[in-house]
């Protein structure tokens, strides 16, 4: 298969601070995204870019904001973490992920047990963007470069 990538110019976003215990904090690659389904479009919300996540995971409230009243009607997938024995049931639904002026169809996985708003993982995000984490300089951050595969 002949695959050609069309690369658009990169956009650089600064890392954002997130609290930790004892007054400490962490810098995280956080991106404002939106989700749409049919004619419904959410307001922008923060998502953590996480190459360790297989899929794009969203809190169940995001599903309900685009009209998915019962997330358990989706495709069940059990996700695990690095902690032994910890599992989370997620439910996949067809949605569109909106990143700035860009949007594309993905299967988003939803769970009410996700403690944060969203994670952008490999299937649905890292297959759409080259992501460069850059800790250098006075404004560390990450760069996104959209790639379009053609077969």
């Amino acid at each position: 298969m002949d695959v050609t990538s069309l690369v658009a110019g990169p956009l650089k976003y600064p890392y954002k601070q997130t609290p930790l215990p004892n007054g400490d904090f962490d810098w995280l690659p956080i991106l404002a995204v939106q989700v749409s389904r049919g004619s419904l479009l959410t307001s922008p919300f923060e998502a953590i870019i996480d190459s360790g996540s297989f899929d794009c995971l969203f809190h169940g409230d995001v599903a309900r904001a685009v009209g998915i009243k019962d997330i358990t009607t989706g495709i069940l997938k059990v996700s695990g973490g690095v902690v032994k024995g910890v599992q989370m049931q997620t439910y996949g639904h067809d949605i569109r992920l909106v990143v700035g002026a860009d949007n594309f169809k993905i299967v988003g996985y939803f769970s009410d047990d996700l403690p944060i708003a969203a994670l952008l993982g490999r299937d649905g995000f890292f297959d759409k963007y080259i992501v460069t984490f850059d800790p250098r300089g006075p404004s560390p951050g990450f760069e996104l470069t959209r790639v379009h595969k053609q077969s």
Partner: protein
Amino acid sequence: MASRVIEMPVPKETENRRLELLRSAPMNSWLALSADETRIVATGKTFMEADTVAKKSGEKNYVLTRTPDVWMSRALLPVR
């Protein structure tokens, strides 16, 4: 051909203010932050509750986020 990187600017004063706001917010809740991340526009137990209050406030370009049950380092890494 070299392409130019377009940086999305964030004022320095925004950084510490963001931390203060997140620490002051109720846990397990949704927040709507002002575009410059210096104010909490709305809070709610659900995404739609916080979003509705933020819309009614007339605030433009707010961003929603969610506080966890506890602030901690997390190995998120959900894998199939």
